[in-house]
């Protein structure tokens, strides 16, 4: 999460958006909100209350990270964590460099 925050601040002006989805159907939403405040996370964090998003994206492990390009196509899926900051930077740099 700190790595995502750093990357969000650095790449935000390129139009990069980070959407975190909390599996609220199997988590405590209050604890999740407390976590967000404590870590000072400013990117949007959504709540998957029914598990519908996890089913749609065929999420079989948490966390799962989807990199989505300008056309809305999933270009890479990474299962498990924690996600290395260098990997996050490398993938986002690659997507930013792609022609619109």
């Amino acid at each position, binding site marked *: 999460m700190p790595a995502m925050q750093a990357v969000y601040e650095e790449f935000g002006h390129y139009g990069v958006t980070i959407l975190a989805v909390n599996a609220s159907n199997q988590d405590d939403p209050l604890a999740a909100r407390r976590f967000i405040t404590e870590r000072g996370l400013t990117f949007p964090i959504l709540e998957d209350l029914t598990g519908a998003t996890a089913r749609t994206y*065929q999420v*079989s*492990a948490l966390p799962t990270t989807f990199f989505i390009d300008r056309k809305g196509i999933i270009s*890479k899926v*990474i*299962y*498990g964590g924690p*996600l*290395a*900051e*260098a*990997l996050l*930077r*490398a993938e986002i*740099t*690659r997507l930013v460099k792609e022609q619109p």
Partner: protein
Amino acid sequence: MLPILNLGPLAIQTPGLILLIGVWIGLTQAEKYARFLKIDSDHIYSLSLLTMVAGIFGARLSFAAQNPAAFQNNWTGLFSLTLQMMDTFGGGVIGLLAAFIYGQRKGLPFWKTLDVFTPGFAVLAIAFGFAQLSSGDAFGAPANLPWSIHLWGEWRHPSQIYFILSAGLIALLVWPRSGSRFNPSGVRFLVWIGSSALARIFLETFRGDSPILIESLRSSQITAWLILAGALVLLNRRLTHNNILPEAQTPQSNPE
């Protein structure tokens, strides 16, 4: 598709696990066949270990060289355990280079050593197919056939299963057993790599993910054609220069 194997609190990456099993079986076969061909199996073990270590470091360094900005604020990322920060091609080149240097220093016979590894390569190819099936990579083109599989929201050619079947048939072809006549040394390896390239050319047509260069011609098909041509040239050279079949090198019994 089973990218993650959840065992209680453990979440195991299935493709990595399958590849590890493939490497283990492959190495066991190589050591066994090395003893049969009277090559020091300790050298084979060291060669394999060195190639893997050099390949892993090479893959990470090659990835870092291609993405320097990703590491400039935090160089410790170079040592991250993430498998995704690997450049397969760079790792392969560096691993093979290390293997070549080691082989030269220890005086290992080049073609015979490649033959020793061929059954292992064949097993690893099958494991690679299963790893792709579990991760959902290398998926097939959309197709409505009785044997289609539902993957990534569509019914598709089971391209990974086609690959596993072809790798299995090729493994049967090159597997050391009594009566299998692959002489002189190097022919077994060249037959394996040539057959694998030929299979790739054919199987790529069923893929739904690989980049298309011109009309229906895919980039990996061009690479496979080049590998096939190289294998045929070397095969011809090995067979004609050695004037075929010194029986002393033919395995007469099953190394099993």
